[in-house]
């Protein structure tokens, strides 16, 4: 038939037209480091506001702080912009000398005025991470007197809270304490916003990279800063591509279209084992997975029940199966790999002990509770394992899965019963987590100390609150460490928290990539050491 034969020709032509082979570019340029990552969480790159994982890693490469951790030793705090510092005799004043000759990306010199402006700006803007440095006693009204530029190269930092200077140095190493280029930021100020609108998607720092483009949900491009104080980075450009789907990340990595893929699953990493072009890397993560009980709950608040919860968790079983390669056992509130972290993990699953504790508490078999957790792996699997164990000791539980945006408001309103959740430190000092797990100055509902896990679980933390204050104020590092050891033990033994696991980060990278360092916190991601 005529029509059909001409149709055949047409469709054949169409098929041919769509199947023309295109050469693919199978290698990234020699001086460019390309990362595949889910960047959906990035909402700002202003260091005074940024508190997300993706953004935090980028900010860490755009800006420097007074003090920071260098990639060769991630547990030792050293001077960044600061060259040296001195504590006053009463431990209330830190005098910081800046490194001479540093410049910002704009070419402006890095001065003490920039430092005072940056810290003041963060406190005055008062965005989410501002609490980190506001702990020093700084407020919008007093910060200009608290952080003073004595001359171009000297800054005087006054500690207004009862806090040891060592802790203050750690706080000043966090992202929110990044030093911005005052002159450049002021140039883009609108209605006295201290450059807030502009800095969201621009950079004005002195870090190894400057921001070239940020297209949300598409890509971020960073260009090397040629006058960086450690020398210009070898990778002249860093590209972070938004790839939400882990299997697409794996394909891109295997093809060599990206140099590193950040969100590969445990299965995918195993699948890469036979490929000599790529390697799977691990790094410690600060995330803890814990279970917590609402102390307003009549059953869960009983001390025997809380102790029993320590014994019902199938620690080894989960680490060997559903958490394989993603989490390790860790039962203390300060993650291992950090200064003063306890590595004692005394609890194992012991159902007999748990049963007798539940019996001691006089709990009726068939008591019903709910378990809230995030609607994603591995939280729901962990919750299921706990549900099965609870069932064995005679407690019926219902699991409620929700998205974080629904779960966190519920948690902050104390409306949960048992919750399986996670927590990561906000900065590199044990006070960060002690403040969350062992400090609650006001347990009243109206106090709304929603940032503290103690308050969220309606636990007054009697005795521990004072101990936490004492640790924060202690200036002798050894004494401090021993107080934190005591705090960690006390929270382990008698608190609403059963801390179970610590996260392990895994990512894949091309075999020719070297020197890509990832630390425990988002502040510790280094692109400048990468070579290919």
């Amino acid at each position, binding site marked *: 038939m005529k029509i059909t034969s001409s149709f055949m020709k047409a469709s054949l032509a169409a098929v041919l037209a*769509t199947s023309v082979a*295109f050469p693919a570019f199978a290698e990234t340029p020699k001086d460019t480091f390309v990362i595949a990552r889910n960047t959906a969480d990035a909402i700002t790159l202003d260091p005074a506001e940024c508190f997300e994982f993706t953004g935090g890693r980028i900010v860490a490469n755009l800006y420097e702080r007074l003090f920071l951790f260098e990639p060769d030793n991630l547990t030792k705090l050293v001077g960044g912009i600061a060259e040296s510092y001195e504590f006053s005799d009463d431990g209330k004043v830190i005098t910081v000398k800046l490194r001479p000759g540093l410049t910002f990306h704009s070419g402006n010199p890095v001065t003490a005025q920039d430092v005072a402006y940056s810290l003041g700006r963060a406190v005055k803007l008062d965005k989410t991470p501002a609490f980190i440095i506001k702990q020093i006693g700084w407020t919008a009204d007093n910060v200009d007197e608290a952080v003073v530029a004595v001359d171009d190269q000297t800054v005087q930092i006054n500690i207004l809270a009862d806090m040891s200077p060592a802790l203050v140095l750690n706080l000043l190493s966090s992202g929110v304490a990044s030093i911005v280029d005052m002159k450049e930021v002021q140039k883009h100020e609108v209605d006295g916003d201290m450059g807030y609108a502009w800095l969201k998607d621009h950079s004005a720092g002195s870090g190894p990279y400057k921001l070239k483009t940020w297209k949300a949900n598409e890509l971020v491009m960073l260009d090397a800063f040629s006058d960086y104080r450690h020398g210009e980075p070898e990778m002249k450009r860093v590209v972070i591509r938004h790839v939400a789907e882990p299997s697409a990340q794996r394909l891109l990595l295997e093809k060599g279209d990206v140099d590193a893929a950040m969100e590969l699953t445990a299965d995918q990493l195993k699948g890469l084992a036979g490929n000599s072009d790529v390697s799977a890397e691990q790094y410690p993560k600060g995330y803890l997975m814990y279970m917590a009980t609402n102390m307003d709950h009549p059953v869960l608040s009983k001390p025997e029940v809380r102790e029993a919860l320590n014994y019902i968790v199938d620690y080894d079983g989960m680490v060997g199966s559903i958490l394989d390669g993603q989490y390790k056992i860790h039962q203390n509130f300060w993650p291992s790999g950090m200064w003063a972290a306890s590595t004692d993990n005394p609890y194992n699953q012991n159902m007999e002990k748990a049963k007798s504790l539940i019996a001691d508490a006089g709990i009726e078999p068939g008591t019903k509770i709910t378990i809230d957790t995030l609607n994603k792996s591995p939280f729901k699997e962990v919750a299921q394992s706990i549900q099965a164990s609870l069932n064995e000791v005679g407690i019926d539980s219902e699991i409620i899965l929700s998205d974080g945006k629904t779960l966190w408001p519920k948690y902050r309103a104390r409306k949960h019963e048992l919750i399986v959740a996670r927590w990561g430190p906000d900065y590199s000092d044990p006070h960060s987590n002690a403040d969350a797990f062992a400090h609650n100055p006001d347990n009243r509902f109206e106090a709304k100390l929603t940032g503290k896990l103690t308050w969220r679980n309606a636990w007054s933390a009697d005795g521990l609150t004072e101990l936490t204050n004492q640790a924060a104020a202690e200036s002798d590092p050894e004494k401090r460490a021993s107080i934190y050891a005591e705090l960690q033990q006390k929270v382990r033994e008698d608190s609403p928290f059963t801390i179970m696991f610590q996260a392990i980060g895994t990512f894949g990278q091309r075999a020719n990539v070297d020197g890509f360092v990832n630390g425990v916190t988002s502040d510790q991601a280094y692109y400048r050491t990468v070579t290919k």
Partner: protein
Amino acid sequence: MTDSSTVQNASVDFKPYVNVARTIGGGVVMLILTFIGLTAITFIIGRIMPNDPVVAIVGDRASKEVYEAMYFQLGLDKPIWQQYLIFLNNVLHGDFGNSVMTTRPVIEDIKRFFPATLELATIATLVGIIIGIPAGVLAAVRQGKLIDHFVRIVGLLGHSIPIFWLGMVALLVFYAKLDWVAGPGRIDFFYDGIVEPFTGVILIDAALERQWDVFHNALSHVILPASMLAIYSLAYIARMTRSFMLDQLNQEYVLTARVKGLNEGAVIWHHAFRNVLVQLITIIGLTYASLLEGSVLTETVFAWPGIGQYITNSLFNADMNAVIGGTLVVGLSFVFINMLSDILYRIVDPRAK
């Protein structure tokens, strides 16, 4: 009376103009109604969801003070009807607000994400029409023969294979193994930013600026995801064409035409096919419009920065400005395509003239 009779007696016939005005007026009324309905529904759903837009912005660690400052800044302390009116007023002034996720004005985001979806959807629909219609006609003409079974199987597969699976397999085969096309993403980053986003559709922008490298790269990226969507549209269009054609071929006028000795081509294309065209336009319009919503799964698998991913991500992040803005654009494109279909009916259907 005298005035109106004078008008009626005038020799100018206003009827066609009235008809056109009616069509346009109807379109405008429909647009306004759609607009109010869409904004009201999305707005109310957004506000009664258990999602907390404040936590979405400040994070779950925020202190009470930071939380409350944002709460008031967003105007959440006002009654919901008042919030809606404020929102509506802003939208009418062209201000959809800022997206939480991207920090940019929603309208800028849409300008960036919608063309990406438009590009995919248009190619997919064109392929669907070019291959789907002839295949459907052919299957109907040779009902029960091998080609008919083939078209029907393809139609069924296109409808039932999950697209994220097919997408992954296609990537594995054509990108990873055969190296015929480029991988996930819309363009390789070293071509990014070379052409000015004039229309936002990279293929068109690159062609306008005669940047053939960029064009080639963009084409290589678009083929796979567009093919995935094309399989869906092709399958649907072919299936519907086949059943419409079968209906027509069994009619007596077709028999009459054949008896009169017309050649088969004229019978099929001139007589039978012209009668299914109106129905086909409806089907094609619907397919195109549903593709313009953006396919979240395809966009996710292929890391395609389209409107579907944008709206979905925004929903997860309780980013209501972005959700409402995105939904409005999708709603408006439905209305627009419907109007376009209406106009096309008038052209192809003699009865509608």
